[in-house]
């Protein structure tokens, strides 16, 4: 049965590679990316999709430190928990 979609945004202090690996593990595919400018900074905004669920990942471009990708999930409660657990230290 399809679960009700929920919304969650998290900001995490983990490398983008770890976020990408986690999303790939739980079945999400990168379908596109774009360069955006927000808060006076350049970001790479990526869209991951798995059936009807979507995850946006925004990471600052350049030498910024520390990097804290913003992950926005529109999906089931299970997916949200999987993402949160997958990017925990």
């Amino acid at each position, binding site marked *: 049965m399809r679960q*009700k*979609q*929920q*919304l*969650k*945004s*998290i*900001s995490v202090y983990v490398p983008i590679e770890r976020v990408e690996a986690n999303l790939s593990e739980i079945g999400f595919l990168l*379908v*596109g*990316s*774009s*360069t*955006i*400018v*927000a*808060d006076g900074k*350049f*970001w*790479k*905004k*990526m*869209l991951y999709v798995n059936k009807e669920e*979507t995850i*946006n990942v*925004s990471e600052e*471009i*350049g030498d910024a430190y520390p990097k804290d990708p*913003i992950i*926005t999930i*529109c999906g089931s409660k299970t997916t949200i928990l999987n993402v949160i657990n997958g990017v925990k230290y």
Partner: protein
Amino acid sequence: MPMYECNEHQFVENIRRMIETSEKFLVNRKINWHDDAKYGPATLPDPEFEKYAILIFRKSLRATVFSRVPFVDDFHKRIYDQGESLHASSNLKFPRLSIPYYRVEYSINLWGGTYYFNFDALFNPEILMEKRRGKLLGKDGSLIYVLKFNPPEENILNINLPKGVMVFDVKNMIKVIDYTSNF
């Protein structure tokens, strides 16, 4: 009417909180394309600048950008010769080669206040080699690099929201100032 600026994380979390309260609300979205020379190659961070590396070069971030080879800017219908200055470090606000972008504005109105999140999405460069004709390229035409700008796909610009949250596209937002609180 106060307006509160949010970043992406704050804006989405505010919407999530609204959804959890079962409060009815509307998300407004405004997308307009601009080409007002706000963005030029000298101020692009290195990973973004690399996309143009076949055509242009610079010593470092904010240094003057020069053309590496002759090329046609198909979007602005201009042709640049080799070694031309395209974005001077002494004039960063006025690049000769500018990058078009979408201005995306999301907002929600709640209890008399407006909460908004804005960002600019740069068009993606595409570099091709094409046979073009013209005054400088001759009647028979010559092979030349062509720079095209493609708009980013809409699904990447969207904030994906659960079904049931209504998003209205608007052309403009008129700010109404409430003076009644002054009396």
